[in-house]
């Protein structure tokens, strides 16, 4: 069969591991810390020593509930812990404490507006579990085990296979990443493996009026959005080609597989077939008690939910009149969005505040490798700066210069504008004088503007720029523009 004889569609679901931003591990008091000396963040509990017992980290449970609620999940009134048994050197007890049949959250949906469409996937469940340590194979002739990571709290989120393109997968994962950082439940640093994506991928193929489904492959441990997209694109093509080459390559006839992603070569690599699937011998963890969650507990956690990124973007667009792109930039992280709202509350007009965020605050933050929220400028001062522009006290260029100074100085933007001599001149006579000078010095532009209506608009902009220049940035552009237009329109008196 040729590719032109068939149609096909992609089916993708996700397992996503989110490392929770708790100070200590899930079942002991050891610090959760990346990069510490091997095995220096361990104790009898996370080492799995004989006689040691786990004790649940309440904060990890609360953060998990918060995430579940933010994804529209129901929180189980009673949830429990189970042991998942398998042997691996970096799993010290040779079982992982996880949640099997009663996850703490289930039955949600996560929807992401994307252009005019919505990318959406149902959330089957979210459960808490402990991470394993790391086995290091760098030393020839031996493998070393570092258990610093062992016992780190992970929230595993499982979606229905509702995603139908690599692009949508990218959008979905990006937004979910934003959600968990927004909620503060995870630092979700992808390089550090704090958020890992495992797409389950197969393809529905229409041929001869029948539908065939390829076996499901699970690509393990993707730690960038780009690799999520590329791995899915690759798998999509590979599975179609494998089916074309072998019509027996279908679900249940051939085993599902685990595959790894080789980022350098841009290919997925077979790891193991799932016909030899582990029997994990799940059973209830007898060392931990069930967790009972009352309606009041859920209400209290729900109370702590901030305005989530998606509704927040919508509000900035609909209520504040921001463009979709500007809203996305401002809502990209919570501190920045909070700062925006704070600046507006302090009296900054939303459109001006958003212009300043996108034009110079973002650039200043970028230059320093931080987010706007981390620049250390208080919302009230940002709001004041925007208001000054809006009221004509300073012009946009001056605002940019003042903003730079605000990073180092705690003075008010008013005082800075004064000190820097940037307070706009609203005096009409002074401005008229600058306009006169500019008209005198730019006869050609003035001539063009008068004789050629097509060039008039550009000429006004040019002349206004010249006025700003000779005024040292102090002219009020609006006033200058009005005076220029008035003068161009006036009958020549010479």
């Amino acid at each position, binding site marked *: 069969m040729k590719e032109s004889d068939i149609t096909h569609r992609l089916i993708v679901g996700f397992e996503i591991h989110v490392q929770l931003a708790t100070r200590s591990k899930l079942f002991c008091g050891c610090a959760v810390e990346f990069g510490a000396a091997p095995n220096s963040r361990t104790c009898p509990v996370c080492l799995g020593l*004989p006689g040691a017992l786990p004790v649940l980290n309440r904060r990890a449970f609360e953060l998990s509930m918060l995430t579940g609620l933010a994804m529209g999940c129901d929180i189980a009134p009673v949830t429990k812990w189970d042991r998942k048994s398998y042997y691996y050197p970096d799993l010290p007890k040779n079982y992982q404490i996880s949640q099997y049949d009663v996850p703490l959250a289930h039955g949600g949906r996560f929807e992401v507006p994307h252009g005019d469409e919505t990318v959406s996937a149902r959330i089957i469940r979210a459960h808490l579990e402990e991470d394993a340590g790391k086995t290091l194979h760098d030393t020839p002739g031996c493998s070393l*085990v570092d258990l610093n990571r062992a016992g780190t709290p992970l929230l595993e989120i499982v979606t229905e296979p509702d995603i139908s393109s690599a692009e949508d997968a990218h959008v979905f994962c990006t937004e979910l990443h934003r959600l968990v950082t927004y909620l503060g439940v995870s630092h979700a640093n992808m390089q550090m493996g704090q958020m890992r994506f495992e797409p389950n991928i197969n393809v529905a193929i229409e041929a001869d009026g029948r539908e065939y489904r390829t076996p499901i492959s699970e690509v393990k441990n993707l730690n960038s959005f780009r690799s999520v997209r590329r791995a899915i694109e690759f798998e999509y093509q590979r599975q179609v080609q494998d089916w074309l080459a072998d019509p027996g390559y279908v679900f249940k006839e051939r085993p599902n597989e685990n595959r790894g992603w080789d980022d350098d070569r841009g290919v997925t690599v077979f790891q193991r077939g799932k016909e030899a699937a582990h029997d994990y*011998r799940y*059973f209830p963890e007898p060392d931990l008690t069930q967790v009972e969650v009352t309606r009041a507990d859920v209400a209290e956690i729900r109370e702590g939910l901030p305005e989530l990124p998606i509704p927040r973007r919508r509000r900035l667009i609909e209520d504040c009149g921001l463009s979709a792109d500007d809203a996305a930039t401002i809502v990209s992280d919570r501190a920045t969005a909070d700062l925006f709202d704070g600046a507006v509350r302090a009296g900054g007009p939303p459109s001006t505040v958003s212009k300043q965020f996108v034009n110079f605050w973002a650039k200043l933050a970028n230059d320093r490798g931080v987010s706007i929220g981390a620049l250390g400028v208080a919302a009230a001062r940002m709001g004041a700066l925007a208001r000054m522009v809006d009221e004509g006290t300073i012009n946009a260029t001056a605002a940019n210069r003042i903003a730079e100074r605000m990073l180092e100085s705690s003075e008010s933007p008013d005082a800075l504008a004064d000190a820097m001599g940037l307070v706009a001149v609203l005096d009409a006579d002074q401005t008229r004088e600058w306009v006169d000078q500019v008209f005198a010095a730019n006869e050609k532009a003035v001539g063009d503007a008068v004789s050629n209506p097509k060039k008039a608009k550009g000429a006004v902009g040019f002349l206004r720029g010249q006025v700003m220049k000779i005024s040292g940035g102090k002219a009020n552009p609006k006033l200058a523009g009005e005076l220029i237009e008035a003068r161009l329109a006036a009958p020549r008196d010479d």
Partner: protein
Amino acid sequence: MLTATETADAVRAGRVSARDAVTECVDAIDRSDGKIGAILHVDRDGALRAAGDIDRRLAEGEDIGPIAGVPVAVKDNICTIDSPTTCASGTLKGYVSPFAADVAERLVSAGAVIVAKTNLDEFAMGSSTESSAYFPARNPWDMSRVAGGSSGGSAAAVAARIVPCALGSDTGGSIRQPAAFTGVVGLKPTYGRVSRYGLVAFGSSLDQIGPVTRDVRDAALLLSVIAGHDVRDATSVDRPVPNYVAELDRPIEGLRIGVASDYFGAGLDDAVRTAVEAGLDALRERGAELINVRLPHLKYAIACYYVVATAEASSNLARFDGVHYGHRTADPKDIFDLYSASRREGFGAEVKRRIMLGTFVLSSGYYDAYYDKALRVRTLIRGDFEAAFEKVDLIASPVTPTTAFPIGQKSADPLAMYLADIYTTSANLAGVPAISVPCGLDGDGLPIGMQLSAPWFEEDRLLAAAHQYQSITDHHQRCPKQ
């Protein structure tokens, strides 16, 4: 040798120094334990140092605690920092825990001196202490017989008067059965009464640490010290600890004692039946009321127990893999060989049998038929006790169907060995406290135990009744010939 209470009183009164008490104890161990096999490790120097410290603090007028200067032996599956904790297993030979069990800390802070670690069936799996990887513990009443198990070392040591008291652990009768076999008192507290932190787990939902003592007063004394909430054990229960010693004189007039025919059926040795019935008569004469109760699901207790306990054990013992600590095989070919050879060499036959049983009952396709069904049976057994305790205050029964059996008699027949636990496992499955008190000797002069069990967290009532029984009988005062 003095009892724990007598020792504590003597030390407090200045009649005996802690150093004297400890010296007498370690000397007795050195002198007598060679033929008993109750002790795995003795820390003479450390114990004497600790005793000297207590004497010095006492001399300075410090109020150290209720058991200041009392030597205590601790079962070797309870972590202590100054001596090995081997669980009588080859896999943990020489293993020293970097942390102490909650009970060990409580003992020390109450002034006790941990003098020795006692022998047990490997990882507490057994009913005879024959499955110890090192040597069996013998019964001081008859050296050709077992001391019972798995806390056989603790029971034999107390019975032989080489230590005043000891701690054991009880998963399915491992304190009460050896106590009955050796004529001493053994108490399994309510699940959650004593912290399991630092107890090397066998069946996590069943395990409890408890005292093994000469009399009930000592059991009350030790329980007062080791009981209490521990944030490091999520299954330990946060409720006040009564002064069990002060409650001992509570009268038993009008106490309703349940007698379940389910405990007196086929397989019960005549001598045991006679002695337990005599014990019941004594309680009645003292003013207790005997009431018939039924525990209809008791007949499933052994089967249920051996599914739940082995399932948990198979998981709990997975960590002994030769990777992180414990025995590692020499020159493994690969990681699989490292695991399998280390475990094959490190574990004994009974431990392997239980790991295999437990692995089987948890396996996909068998879970529902075995493990899940066992959990449901467990709920029924718990329900039996709940219903019975609506009508009675305590339940009385034998501890074991027979007296101590000869060494080697059952070691080749695991099922016969498992059936020795027939009267004890139900208390663990239900979580209720139960005590074994001596109630006579059989025709061979071997001790017999009577079991009393109480509702959850009613150890005070349980101990008071057992103490009242001892105040009118003298079975607990008999001891094996030296």
